[in-house]
């Protein structure tokens, strides 16, 4: 559907896109996730035709986009600041593209109404753009782009200007909208939660390069690099040592935690080095409150810090016999007290808690 072949874009000395290659399927909800300045917007603008790649090609539906200007590409962009035309009404904003196409008035009107209904803004077509709230502007921008029936809808951090509550609601609505219209969505975001909840697939970018491209579950469970792992969710990193390895299993000793045998991850073909780093997600560790509780592996530690989140508490636990610290998250269920600092605890884990990086 969309194909990028080693697309490179430079601004003077900065390399905004460094040989990016990726394919986006038809009807997919695809997210581009990365820290500020990593080139997300540049990639979107290159696809929509506002920037021209220095190297590489872009194909949409099998057609090369070289020399095709932004106004003739089958893409539409929802701008980060929405770019609502301030001198027009909502209806004029949404109908702008159709008017430029030269459609009849009545036709435009009915399509505008349908589009507004789709984003639940029925009846607002005569409101002036500057009287709208942030969430409403966002919907107008969405309707204005969707009414053009693009092959790909490009969204540049569309939710970042909204407050948390509205953002969560819009995430939900956006996902539904995408299913309903069946248009390919390419969403840019720096919010990992947004990417995880909405996308079919995620590409993680650092410094103009794609670091990993996979489904949300895959990226979360098996990050390819420390950088990716740190960016998505939180993860404690521990020093470890390879003891032995076979074709499908690896035995490692993790300093302060213990020894475990893990299945060899698919992406790892070469032999493991001796000194390695492993990652542990906080929710895959457990603090054993009850003496009767048992786990595959248990390790003693001391709480050195805690952060209370309401439904969860994050504990920092220093492992006994080691300087290494892990983060453990615990759900604050009924009857479970919040542990104080310096308490001695037992951490329960099993081999599936450990991620090889």
């Amino acid at each position, binding site marked *: 559907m969309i194909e990028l072949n080693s697309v490179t874009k430079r601004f003077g000395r900065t390399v905004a896109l460094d040989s990016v290659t990726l394919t986006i399927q038809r009807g997919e909800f695809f997210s581009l996730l990365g820290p500020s300045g990593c080139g997300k917007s540049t990639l979107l603008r290159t696809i*929509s035709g*506002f920037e021209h790649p220095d190297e590489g090609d872009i194909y949409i539906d099998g057609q090369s986009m070289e020399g095709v*200007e*932004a*106004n*003739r590409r089958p*893409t*539409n*962009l929802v*701008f*980060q*600041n929405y*770019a609502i*035309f*301030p*001198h027009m009404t909502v209806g004029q904003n949404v109908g*702008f*593209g159709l008017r*430029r*196409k030269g459609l009849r008035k009545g036709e435009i009107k009915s399509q505008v109404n349908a589009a507004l209904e789709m984003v639940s803004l029925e009846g607002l077509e005569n409101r*002036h*753009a*500057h009287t709208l709230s942030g969430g409403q502007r966002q919907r107008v921008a969405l309707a*204005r*782009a969707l009414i*053009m029936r693009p092959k790909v809808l490009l969204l540049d951090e569309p939710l970042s200007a909204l407050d948390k509550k509205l953002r969560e609601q819009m995430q939900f609505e956006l996902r539904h909208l995408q299913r309903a219209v069946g248009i390919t969505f390419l969403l840019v975001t720096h919010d990992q939660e947004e990417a995880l909840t909405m996308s079919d697939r995620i590409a993680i970018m650092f410094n103009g390069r794609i670091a990993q491209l996979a489904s949300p579950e895959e990226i979360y469970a098996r990050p390819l690099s420390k950088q990716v792992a740190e960016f998505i969710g939180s993860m404690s990193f521990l020093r470890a040592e390879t003891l032995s390895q076979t074709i499908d299993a690896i035995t490692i000793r993790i300093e302060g935690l213990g020894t475990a045998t893990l299945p060899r991850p698919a992406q790892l073909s070469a032999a493991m080095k001796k000194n390695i780093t492993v990652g542990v997600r906080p929710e895959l560790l457990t603090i054993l409150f009850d003496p009767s509780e048992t786990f595959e592996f248990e390790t003693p530690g001391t709480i050195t810090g805690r952060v209370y989140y309401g439904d969860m508490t994050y504990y920092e636990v220093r492992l006994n016999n080691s300087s290494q610290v892990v983060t453990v998250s615990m759900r604050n269920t009924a009857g479970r007290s919040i542990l104080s600092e310096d308490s001695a605890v037992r951490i329960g884990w099993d081999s599936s808690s450990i991620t090889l990086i």
Partner: protein
Amino acid sequence: MKWTLKYGLWAYVSLYLIFLYMPALLLPIFALNDSRIVAFPLQGLTWRWFALLWETEALHDALRNSLIIASITAFMSTIFGLMAARASSRYAFPMRKGMAALVMIPLVLPEIIVGVSLLVVVMQFGFDLSLWTIILGHVLICTPFCVVVMSTAFNNFDRSLEEAAFDLGATRGATFRWVSLPLVLPGVIASLLISFTISLDEFIIAFFLAGVDVTLPVYIWGLLRFPARLPSVMALGTFLLAASLLLLISAEVIRRYGARRAGTSSNGHLF
């Protein structure tokens, strides 16, 4: 200490305002004073100086010439200002700074120099002096002001609006017509008004480059040598002041209307 400072400042401002307004206030006073001599004490009320204006053919010709010149100048220099401002705020190209600098130079050149240099060229080529030679000079000195006004207008509006229009399938022309132009319209009007006013008021260049048809300031210059005509000059000045105030107020009304339509909150209100 603080109080004396504050009152001192107010007193100073009042005195300064008297200084600023003194000449302008004298205009209507002597325009209505029933005496050929422009001095106190006053002699009584009359409208005859205004009536005299109404009957002076030469004045009407000069006014018409000035209005023609100012209109064409305003139009041309606003278009130039629009082009230069858009080019330098929107596009990157070699020698941008240098080209813009040349266009802006008349701003830091005494007008007499502009007048003299154009006169030299006109003489060299043996062109006839006409309203057009004045227009050429006026466009030159008005363009920098238009560039400044239009640059603020362009810098104040978000470039992604143009991109949005283009992205929605509009051509470059349509984008300009339906998005850029409406949004910089207040700037265009301001630019038209400013250049119109500058041209209408300009004396030196018109003085150097006028042929048989003179502009209003050149005509007034001629009148100033005749003491007997002074009261009617005062009446003319009063009329011009009233007219330009009216123009200014309507411009402000338009500006505020534009600002409201564009949704940008205008900071500060005139009325």
